[in-house]
């Protein structure tokens, strides 16, 4: 029974399904990315274009700027989530009555459909309807309009992401924190180390593997954000929150420029593969499996 054949037979359905759903699209899009293919153009079908699509992509201002604001968004959102999540995780390491309740509520946004998160935030933030613009105007005289000011729209998407994903950081870091060995902390206390020193020389180095894993997962997820932002701002005003995922989605389908869209998809996939390889190496080599 332990023949390799049986093993592969058990694995085969998974490999076939993943080949059809994960690998076939990949090769197909690689193929199409070397062709000109526009459904509405005068010339029907595909014509070979070599690297032309990729050349166009590297000089495409709209694409580059969408990539840049996505990176900016990812940086601010993930940075805030890590800082906030770490502080909240620290507050959960000790026991206090009601801790389980706070923790459960805190985890709630993680399960909510991103599209519903976007809808919820839209109802909060939309000018002329939501309570946030209304009370900001009433109480502080601040004009808050995410349909008009790019900066406000950008920071609102960051805030929404922080609302949605900080709990993940809190919970992963908490899992890491409570699994740390006690002895070093006890001896540090005996030696009279202050809180800052304990944090700098004990907590931080020991939490680094879990922190890295969390960081990578958050970065990967933030880079591919679409649903929430699409619901909240529609990528606007102008192109202020048109992150790469939205750009690709809104650029390719309405214009049916499939060859060019394929090149864009390939480039995104390439970045993703490089990043997930780094993540994989970080997880497997640093031994961040916390049990």
């Amino acid at each position, binding site marked *: 029974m332990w023949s390799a054949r049986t093993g592969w037979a*058990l694995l085969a359905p998974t490999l076939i399904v*993943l080949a059809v759903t994960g690998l076939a699209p990949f090769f197909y899009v690689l193929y199409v990315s070397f062709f000109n293919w526009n459904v509405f153009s005068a010339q029907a079908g595909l014509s070979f274009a070599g690297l032309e699509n990729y050349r166009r992509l590297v000089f495409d201002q709209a694409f580059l700027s969408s990539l840049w604001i996505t990176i900016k968004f990812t940086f601010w959102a993930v940075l805030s989530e890590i800082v906030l999540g770490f502080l909240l995780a620290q*507050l959960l390491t000790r026991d*206090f009555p009601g801790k389980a309740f706070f923790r459960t509520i805190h985890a709630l946004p993680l399960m909510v459909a991103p599209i519903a998160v976007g809808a919820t935030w839209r109802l909060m933030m939309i000018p002329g309807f939501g309570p946030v613009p209304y009370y900001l105007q009433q109480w502080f005289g601040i004009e808050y309009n995410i349909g008009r000011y790019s900066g406000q729209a950008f920071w609102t998407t960051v805030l929404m992401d922080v609302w949605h994903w900080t709990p993940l950081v809190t919970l992963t870091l908490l*899992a890491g924190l409570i699994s740390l060995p006690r002895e070093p902390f006890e001896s540090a206390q005996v030696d009279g180390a202050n809180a800052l020193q304990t944090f700098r020389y004990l907590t931080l180095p020991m939490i680094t593997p879990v922190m890295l894993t969390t960081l990578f*997962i958050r970065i990967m997820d933030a880079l591919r954000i679409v649903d929430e932002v699409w619901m909240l701002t529609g990528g606007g005003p102008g192109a202020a929150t048109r992150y790469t995922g939205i750009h690709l989605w809104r650029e390719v389908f309405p214009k049916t420029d499939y060859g060019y869209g394929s090149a864009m998809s390939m480039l995104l996939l390439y970045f993703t593969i490089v990043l997930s390889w780094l993540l994989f190496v970080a997880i497997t080599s640093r031994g961040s499996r916390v049990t």
Partner: protein
Amino acid sequence: MSKERYGRKLRGNILVYLVWVLSTLLTLLPIYWLFLVSIRSRVQLFGTPSLMIHGVYTDNYASFFGDATFRRYLLNSIIVSTSNAILVAILAVMATYALSRWRLQGEQNIFFWTITNRMAPPAAFLLPLFLLFTRVFKFGGWDLFDTRLGLILFYTVFNLPFAIWLLKGIIDSIPIELDEAAMADGADVKTVLLRIIVPLAAPGIAISAIFSWVFSWNEYLLAATLTSVNARTITTGLAEFVTVTGTNWGEMAAVSMVALLPALIFLALVQRYIVMGLTFGAVKE
């Protein structure tokens, strides 16, 4: 305990409570507002946005459940999510058993490949999947586009990796002696899987099935691109509210409430596994 230390501990606890009460309020506020909007009539929604409950108005929900289109979206979501969860559970048990008991060539690469699938931006999959659906998986007049089968199959790309990661640890911990004892009694692989592995790994299988279910329910981008009429799901229906009907806030809120209901229901069940679920088992609690 000295008086001074007691005082410090109390002050520390007050700070902890302040932070957590604030955090809880901020988490719940948007959802509370959503709920309020969903139980208000059009007239009540004009003017000052009040955070008080002024009676319960159920027409928003009634018009949702009364609309045949939305009932179909809801049914599609339920069918797609449930079928996907079952498919993922079956494939994952078989695959993980193989990865756990056999030393197969390229095992590490298979693992890496599955994460890449999970990590890939769905936006990059849209065009290739759209083209495959409409032009390649085509048999006579039938193609995968706008079918529930298409969604069920393609959500496995994102769900299967997690299920395998979660089950790997669990099946690894089932002693191989149990399999061997059963085999000595003449059991084949199928019997070992059904009689030993599945019952012992049942909690893990349930958790991965729930996560697959919730993910499929929550997914928007692929559903919006790969369906048009027949196989539309609840999330695409929700997005249509913003683009098509504009400002029917009450109904939009009601649809949103329905869309986030499973999250509320399952939260208590899988709370302990959320971290594992969202980091594909890289971080365990």
